[in-house]
């Protein structure tokens, strides 16, 4: 039996932020894996920790973040144990990231072409100017930019938001990475542009066999682009499984509530439900389930200890005392 190393495996990841106002336990014991060509969505609201996980995967956490425990295996190698030099080799080459604001990926003083060539040169070691330009233009073509030459010679501020995001994707995939982390890449874009970019990412996934980690707060977007979805609340996994399963048969009260409080454009909905209360203080977590204070279905045990992640149906995991571990 041949075992193929998964491009990305995240195991029991725990990350804390050290701030002047205390230790923020931003991510607690999160685990998931992504196969080649698969896309996994990290879905949560602001403050859920999803962006932190994304940054951890590419080794771009801010200075005051500490990885307390866990592993991030990129093609089998734990990137948390690498030093800066080795990380440099992986970052931008094996793992790439695109951000919510495409301008964040570009130095405004350089043209897109210059930045692209720079990345390709340093990550793929190609020196020949002709070859560099060819590869750069190819990357711009792959992302569907109608006039690659023009974009190549443009500065970031000369491009519209949609084109700039495509260019950012071009930079990210120019080195043929195995993993692409996309942190809310369409949140700042109009709805029709968003649809185009999501189409593009789907296309690239198939063409290049990318493992996509897509971070979003929008369940609709997750439904469009993901194979599996990981719902994260206040730093811990709440539900995880195939996207169809989780969205059509949500098990966790938070997931269910989340789906019920989103208005729809395709159907008439009755009065929207909402989730009372607010996010807990990540510096002082309650001893029990982190969602319990806002949960309308809480049981006594929910106050006392945090629930375990249990596989309720094949591939569908939930962390909730209503689905206890039957072992």
């Amino acid at each position: 039996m041949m075992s193929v190393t998964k491009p990305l495996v995240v195991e029991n990841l725990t990350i804390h932020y050290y701030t002047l106002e205390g230790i923020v336990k931003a991510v607690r014991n999160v685990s998931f894996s992504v196969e080649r060509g698969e896309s996994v969505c990290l879905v949560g609201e602001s403050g859920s920790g999803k962006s932190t996980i994304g940054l951890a995967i590419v080794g771009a956490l801010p200075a005051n973040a500490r990885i307390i425990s866990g592993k991030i295996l990129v093609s089998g190698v734990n990137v948390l144990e690498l030093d800066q030099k080795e990380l440099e080799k992986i970052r931008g080459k094996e793992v790439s990231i695109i951000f919510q604001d495409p301008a964040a990926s570009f130095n405004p003083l350089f043209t897109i072409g210059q930045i692209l060539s720079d990345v390709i040169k340093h990550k793929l070691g190609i020196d020949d100017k002709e070859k560099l330009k060819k590869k750069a233009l190819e990357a711009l073509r792959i992302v569907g930019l109608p006039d690659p030459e023009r974009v190549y010679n443009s500065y970031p501020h000369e491009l519209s938001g949609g084109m700039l995001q495509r260019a950012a994707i071009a930079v990210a995939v120019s080195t043929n990475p195995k993993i692409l982390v996309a942190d809310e890449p369409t949140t700042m874009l109009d709805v029709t542009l968003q649809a185009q970019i999501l189409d593009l990412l789907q296309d690239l996934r198939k063409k290049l066999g990318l493992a996509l980690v897509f971070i979003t707060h929008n369940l609709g977007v997750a439904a469009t682009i993901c194979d599996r979805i990981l719902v994260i609340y206040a730093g811990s996994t709440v539900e995880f499984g195939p996207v169809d399963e989780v969205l059509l048969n949500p098990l966790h009260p938070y997931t269910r509530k989340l789906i019920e409080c989103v208005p729809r454009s395709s159907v008439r909905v009755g009065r929207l439900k909402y989730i009372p209360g607010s996010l807990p203080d990540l510096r002082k977590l309650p001893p029990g389930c982190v969602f319990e204070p806002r949960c309308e279905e809480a049981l006594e045990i929910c106050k006392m200890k945090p629930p375990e992640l249990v596989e309720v149906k094949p591939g569908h995991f939930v962390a909730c005392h209503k689905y206890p571990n039957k072992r």
Partner: protein
Amino acid sequence: MIPEDVRVIFRLIKTNPVSLAGLVIVVGFVIVGIIAPYIVPYPEDAWGETYNIEKRYLPPSLEHPFGTDDMGRDVFSRVILGARFSLIIAIGVVGLALLIGIPIGLIAGYVGGKLGTALMRITDMFLAFPPLLLAIALAATLGRGLVNTIIALAISWWPWYARLVYVQVNSIRVLPYVDAARIVGLHPLAIMFKHVLPNALTPVTVQAALDMGSAILEAAGLSFLGVGVKPPTPEWGLLVTEGWSSINVAWWISLFPGLAILITVLGFNLLADAVREAGDPRLRRILLVGRKI
């Protein structure tokens, strides 16, 4: 000042021993400056009204911790009282500069158009001069004296504040809460004073408070050059000058006032660094718990 900013700043200062030292120095300076006339051991010496021929050039001792100067006056008393003059100068210069600069920046930024451009051009002209040179020229023209020194320095300083206020007002003018004030029906003047100005002033007041250190330094410089305050005012710069000719034999006359300048200005600068760090938005986001709305 917005309470939140002050909280962040104080927290930053508390945790950083260097900025804490700065805060201690500045607070110490202000306190000494205020109570100086009441704590000087030799008040007549301090004000320079004495001439004790037998006590001239005495080295530091228990009775005269900083020794005596060429007129037999207790240097310690003079340095202590000098703190008050430095405080007066600091507040005077910065206060006057703000008084001139804020209205100009406010009107230029809020009204804009041709008037705004004109005002800013004038400001730019002043900014083109090296500030100390301008102050020296003005001081020399106006003549020596405490008030003239303050005026000369203030005139060389107001453009910085005008520019700062202008930039702030320009960016605040387009914020939604200003639009909201218009929609509520507030009179434009009311909007200017109630909504725009208070928010524009935060960076300015902080900058001004910290600039006091530079004001002290520049005033000392002017006095040292002989265009600042008149003797026998015990201003620190002047004290340094007075001891300059005898520096080989009576080093204490210039040294201690010089140290006073050094430590005080250093205190302000250390504090300024802490405040600047607190103002850096990236650092702030790290320092406070991640705030998203």
